[in-house]
């Protein structure tokens, strides 16, 4: 037991360190939960997608992808072009994503090729690549736009007509994703699901496959989801308070926390019932009861006046959170696909992977393309959340902060998961919110807090790189010792 506690502390040392710094900063800052929570949930929605974009290269053994900056550039180029061509609102944002995809694929391919020529130095390579690419990015925005390609849209250009302004207002695209109302989400997803089930049925009929209700390819799951969506859809048209509720685009933090509690409990109870019915494991599933207990405790905590007051002022952008949740599910699913498993094998040992017949170089390029495309989407979420695009600056610190957040969540250079990303974003951005306020209270100026958080971001990366290299040296030494002993 003692050993277990020590292992737990050692495994989670970075998380625990940051947790204590954050708690101290919260105490020192004197911020109210109202301010803190609403800021934290905004930042969570803004930044998590970008951090999740880092996971696939880690799995494929490419380490922390400092090259996500290149994906962010793809997003900004597309954003500029879409604004130039008159894109607006939600459709504008989706056009940006559509346009950014091919650009990010090409750039991701190039970076992947480059990384294949410097195996083992991908991280320093990624850092330098992003700075190198910034030179061309500046060339494009300062000279090509307006200098070579004439651009008549004066709102975007500097007074000389050559070069793009440093701050571009997004107009109606500002928070367009964040502002999609639950009503629209419910309606659109109902019809999408309906179409999906219909197509599935037609496909089965055309292919003359048996139509089963249960089993892995059964229709029960899509039908249940469709059923829930249908109930929601009918409710919006019949029950006025429900319609009014869904017509808002943000979800109140209190409702959100209850919704989350209900969903987790429902999933756990479903599993408990299934386990007991199938008699899969002897005895009671203790772990699931523990989770239920934790949910109950968590729910009681939200009833504390401080917390509930804070949550009441939280406005969660529903659609952005849904995209983040979707990406989490996608990554969890992807890891278990054939390609995902290949990536894991490569991440563990390239020689073994080659011996197993995996095309290492090609798979690594695919990982880089996926990461770059996801980073482009992540940058779109960030920019629309701010409502203003800082043409020459918005991409520069994206890599630093995303990577620092992932590491704060307990990830390492070789191991990172969705859990690390979520914990990391919460902790790291808590520190970002609290540090200036805390330093104002403690030292009389917000400046120190701002310096401290940038230092913390850099230091946590330095520490992770050192730990990784250290382990690698030790491992090599052990192997050598074994080889000489044998």
């Amino acid at each position, binding site marked *: 037991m003692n050993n277990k506690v020590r292992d737990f502390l050692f495994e989670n040392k970075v998380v625990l360190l940051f947790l204590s710094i954050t708690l101290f900063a919260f105490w020192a800052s004197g911020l109210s939960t109202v301010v803190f929570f609403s800021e934290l949930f905004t930042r969570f929605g803004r930044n998590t997608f970008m951090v999740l974009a880092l996971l696939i290269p880690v799995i494929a053994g490419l380490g922390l992808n400092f090259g996500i900056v290149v994906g962010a550039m793809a997003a900004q180029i597309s954003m500029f072009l879409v604004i130039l061509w008159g894109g607006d609102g939600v459709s504008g944002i989706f056009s940006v994503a559509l346009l950014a995809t091919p650009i990010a694929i090409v750039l991701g391919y190039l970076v992947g090729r*480059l990384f294949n*020529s*410097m*195996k*083992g*130095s991908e*991280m*320093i*390579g990624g*850092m*330098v*690549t992003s*700075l*190198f690419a*910034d*030179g*061309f990015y*500046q*060339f494009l925005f*300062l*000279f090509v736009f307006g*200098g070579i390609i004439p651009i008549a849209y004066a709102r975007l250009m500097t007074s*000389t*007509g*050559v*070069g793009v302004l440093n701050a571009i207002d997004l107009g109606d695209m500002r928070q367009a994703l964040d502002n999609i109302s639950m009503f629209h989400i419910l309606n659109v997803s109902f019809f999408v699901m309906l179409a999906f089930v219909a197509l599935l049925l037609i496909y089965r009929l055309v292919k003359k496959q048996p139509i089963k209700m249960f089993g892995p390819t059964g229709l029960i799951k899509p039908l249940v989801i469709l059923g829930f969506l249908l109930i929601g859809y009918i409710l919006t048209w019949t029950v006025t308070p429900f319609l009014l509720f869904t017509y808002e685009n943000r979800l109140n933090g209190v409702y959100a926390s209850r919704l989350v509690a209900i969903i987790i409990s429902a999933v756990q109870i479903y599993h408990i019932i299934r386990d007991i019915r199938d008699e899969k494991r002897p005895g009671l599933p203790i772990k699931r009861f523990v989770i239920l207990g934790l949910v109950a405790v968590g729910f009681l905590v939200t009833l504390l006046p401080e917390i509930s007051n804070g949550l009441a002022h939280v406005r969660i952008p529903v659609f952005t959170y849904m995209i983040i949740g979707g990406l989490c599910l996608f990554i969890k699913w992807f890891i278990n696909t054939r390609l995902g498993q290949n990536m894991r094998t490569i991440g563990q040992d390239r020689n073994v992977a080659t011996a197993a017949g995996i095309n290492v170089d090609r798979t690594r390029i695919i990982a880089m393309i996926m990461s770059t495309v996801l980073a482009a989407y992540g940058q779109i979420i960030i920019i629309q959340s701010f409502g203003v695009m800082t043409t020459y600056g918005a991409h520069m610190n994206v890599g630093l902060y995303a990577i620092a957040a992932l590491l704060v969540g307990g990830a390492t250079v070789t191991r990172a998961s969705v859990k690390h990303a979520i914990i990391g974003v919460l902790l790291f951005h808590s520190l970002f919110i609290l540090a200036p306020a805390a330093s104002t209270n403690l030292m009389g*100026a917000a*400046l*120190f807090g701002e*310096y*401290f958080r*940038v*230092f913390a971001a*850099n*230091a946590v*990366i*330095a520490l992770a*790189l*050192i730990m*990784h*290299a*250290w382990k*690698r*040296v030790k491992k090599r030494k052990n192997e050598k010792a074994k080889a000489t002993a044998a």
Partner: protein
Amino acid sequence: MSQMTAKNEPSTFVKNVKRLVNDFGLPRLIILTLFILLFVMAGIYDMNLPSFFGDVLRRWGMWGILVLAMVPGIQSGIGPNFGVTVGIVGGLVGAVLSINMNHAGVFDFVTNPALHTIVLALVAIAIGLALAIPMGILYGMLLNRVKGSEMAVSVYVGFSVVNLFNILWATFPVTASILILPATGRGLRQMVNLRDDFGGAFDEPLRFAIGDMTIRPGLLIVFFLACFLMYLFTRSRLGMMMSAAGSNPSYARASGINVEKMRVLGTTISTALGAVGIIIYAQSFGFLQLYLAPLMMGFTVVASVLLGGATVRRARVFDVLLGAFLFNGILTIALPLANTMLPDVPGVPEMLRLIITYGIVLYALSKVKGGR
């Protein structure tokens, strides 16, 4: 010894163009062509070439010692020392303390103004070295534990140190008003004017002009002297041992060289030269730049030495001389030339700097071909 055999015979220059490109290095060829092209363009645009050339010489000396700091690092086997910024901040602390002492009247006994500035600069260097050497030893010991990943680690150690010193600069206990932010009365300025302190300490003595070309022999003498000393060191027994430890660690170990110690030595000399280099840089620039100014300097000097023909495994003093000259030559001429040719585009030299600096580092990295 290996440097000699790596050099190619002049006859291959004529015989085989491909071989030439390979030996000389494609980026160096591009940069050299660009350099000559820029000079020709500057001539065509009827710009003041002698004056530019004087500026190139000045920037050559300004950056020279910082670039020279790469040689011991690469030779001892730690690779390009991106973390030379560790030494740079040490030098900056030395400079700040020296200025503070000067304004407290500590150096009033030196009445000769030229000598006064030199004494100030030397004090700054001495304090800088006193800080940089222990930091370099610790940093070298750290790098011994992360063999194979020195570059990525050194970049982020450098970044962390610069960012940590941000907090220090903002709370530095000094009394001289020239150092302190006037707005808040606390913390150092972003840029400190060195006019009343050691500005031009090595630039001003012996300065003369041929037409529009200003020549600062003092600065160049300091730079060449440092290069000469480094050359002597690399030829010395200790220097040879260090290079052996870097180029072939297992062989060096077998012949009784303490490889770890040699790597710490190389890192420490590199860090110490960073501290000296920033003082030389600042006295020529005329301002002391604090806070985030040194953040990317590591990349600039690494790019310079690579441009001169060094690789991540081998660097000579000659590479420093050539690299620093080419790098600064291009950037010095690019700025006024771009302003004349493309008056509407403000950032051309900056783009050029980014592409050259990081392009050359990237090229060198892609040539490494994973050691394991």
